[in-house]
């Protein structure tokens, strides 16, 4: 009988199995046999046998290494130390095959050979090495142009979609912005000084292919300010079936412009009279539905930049949150000084006021958007209202009365 009957079941499905991969690795890496054994034990006992955290790292850095130890080191000696290394990924996850081979060779030499491309933050994940191998592995990576990424109470490795490199909808160069911000905040990435983690994610358009709106403390999502560009002849071609919706990837072969596009517009800002498509761009909320369906007929405008949102995270102290608009439109051009300054101000306010393990979005919930805007020097904007027309209350502060007495008006007609 097999030593791992429960794990073996994971090889029986129609999909590739990580168990099959691990068994292949076990032939040349003895610690992987222990890894399979401990995992089988966990499945039997329905409890993890990993301990994590501690003091391991590389000299000078406090990020990028996650200490892992087995709580059954006598039974599985290969897992006595089995640390994880996070390696900062290249922008857009572009590699040459030579770079991939180099990464694999380094990890074969210094670690278990097991890696994950990529972790949820975006890093390359090296799974399983000993404390003694951490520093030489780091040095080997550094000699080949790679650095370790973020972990702990630090800025995490920023990530981005492929942006202008492959996508015609990208409203700014996400890869350049991601790289530039990574370089700007090297100190914050490698030396944990925050209350908890802080993530930047860059999406080129509101399709948000890196899910920045749900997963990044600071979401930078490409957007345009002017009108959607329309090619009316192409719209007619979609209506007539000569062009396939979504390039052939839609649920239908031929678009019913009224039913599939106009009626599904969330702000009802479109109309179709059978020959001309009209868009009331003032009401458009840039959901991308119409553009996604008819990419040869509709394109984002030409006055492009990004919306900056803040605060999304998975459940930690509070429940999960989505990001919150703080700057409706920011030009995204090198050297991205406006974003860098805003990012630094946000981090400073959060570091000053945040409790241990409190994300910036949770701090805003606790202290209020008003305190946040005052602290980082942002003007309140209508786009920050999460549920428009739902809250009739406005909390006046004494300085508001004084400002009003001096002539400040709050309602701009």
């Amino acid at each position, binding site marked *: 009988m097999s030593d791992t009957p429960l794990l073996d079941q994971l090889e029986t499905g129609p999909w590739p199995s990580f168990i099959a991969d691990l068994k292949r690795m076990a032939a040349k890496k003895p610690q992987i046999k222990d890894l399979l054994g401990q995992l089988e034990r966990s499945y039997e006992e329905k409890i993890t046998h990993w*301990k*994590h*955290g*501690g*003091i*391991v*790292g590389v*000299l*000078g*850095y*406090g*990020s990028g290494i*996650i*200490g892992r*130890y087995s709580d059954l*080191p*006598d039974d599985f000696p290969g897992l*006595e*130390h089995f640390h994880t290394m996070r390696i900062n990924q290249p922008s857009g996850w572009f590699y040459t095959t030579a770079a991939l081979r180099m990464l694999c060779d380094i990890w074969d030499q210094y670690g278990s050979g097991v890696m994950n491309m990529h972790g949820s933050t975006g890093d390359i994940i090296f799974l399983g090495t000993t*404390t003694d191998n951490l520093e030489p592995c780091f040095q080997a990576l550094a000699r080949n142009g790679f650095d370790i990424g973020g*972990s*702990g*109470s*630090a800025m995490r490795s920023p990530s981005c979609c492929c942006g202008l490199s492959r996508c015609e909808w990208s409203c700014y160069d996400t890869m350049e912005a991601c790289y530039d911000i990574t370089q700007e905040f090297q*100190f914050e990435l490698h*030396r*944990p*000084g*925050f*209350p*908890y983690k802080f993530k930047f994610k860059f999406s080129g358009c509101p399709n948000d292919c890196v899910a920045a709106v749900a997963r990044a403390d600071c979401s930078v999502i490409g957007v345009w300010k002017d009108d959607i560009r329309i090619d009316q002849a192409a719209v007619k071609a979609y209506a007539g079936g000569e062009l396939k919706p979504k390039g052939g990837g839609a649920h239908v072969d031929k678009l019913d412009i009224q039913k599939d596009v106009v009626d599904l517009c969330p702000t009802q800002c479109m109309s179709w009279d059978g020959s001309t498509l009209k868009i009331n761009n003032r009401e458009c909320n840039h959901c991308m539905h119409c553009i996604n369906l008819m990419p040869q007929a509709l394109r984002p405008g030409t006055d492009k930049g990004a919306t900056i949102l803040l605060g999304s995270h998975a459940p930690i102290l509070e429940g999960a949150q989505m990001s919150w608009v703080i700057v409706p439109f920011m030009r995204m051009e090198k050297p991205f000084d406006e974003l860098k300054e805003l990012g630094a101000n946000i981090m*400073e306010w959060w*570091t*000053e006021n*945040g409790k*241990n*393990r409190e994300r910036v979005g949770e701090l805003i919930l606790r202290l209020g958007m008003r305190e946040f805007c005052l602290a980082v020097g942002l003007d309140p904007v209508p786009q920050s209202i999460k549920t428009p027309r739902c809250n009739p209350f406005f909390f006046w502060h004494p300085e508001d009365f004084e400002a009003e007495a001096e002539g400040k008006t709050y309602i701009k007609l």
Partner: protein
Amino acid sequence: MADSVSKEELVESIYQEVAKVQGKKQLKAGDLTKLMIKKYGDAVSKNDVKFAIKELIDSGRCVYTYFGGSFIELPHEEGAAKHI
């Protein structure tokens, strides 16, 4: 930094704060910044403390640790590791 607090003094002062609570309490970089500003007032800035901590870490006198958050502590034996 103001003349009254040298970098060496600031580094030593941070080290003493970490050593004082070792084993009893864990301090984050932000805690140390607040402690130093409370102690020295305008004579030190947040940036001074940031680079003083860097010096302590780079020299190996202090290390970063992770126990549900990142802290700055004196180097010590790894509690989670098997004792051989």
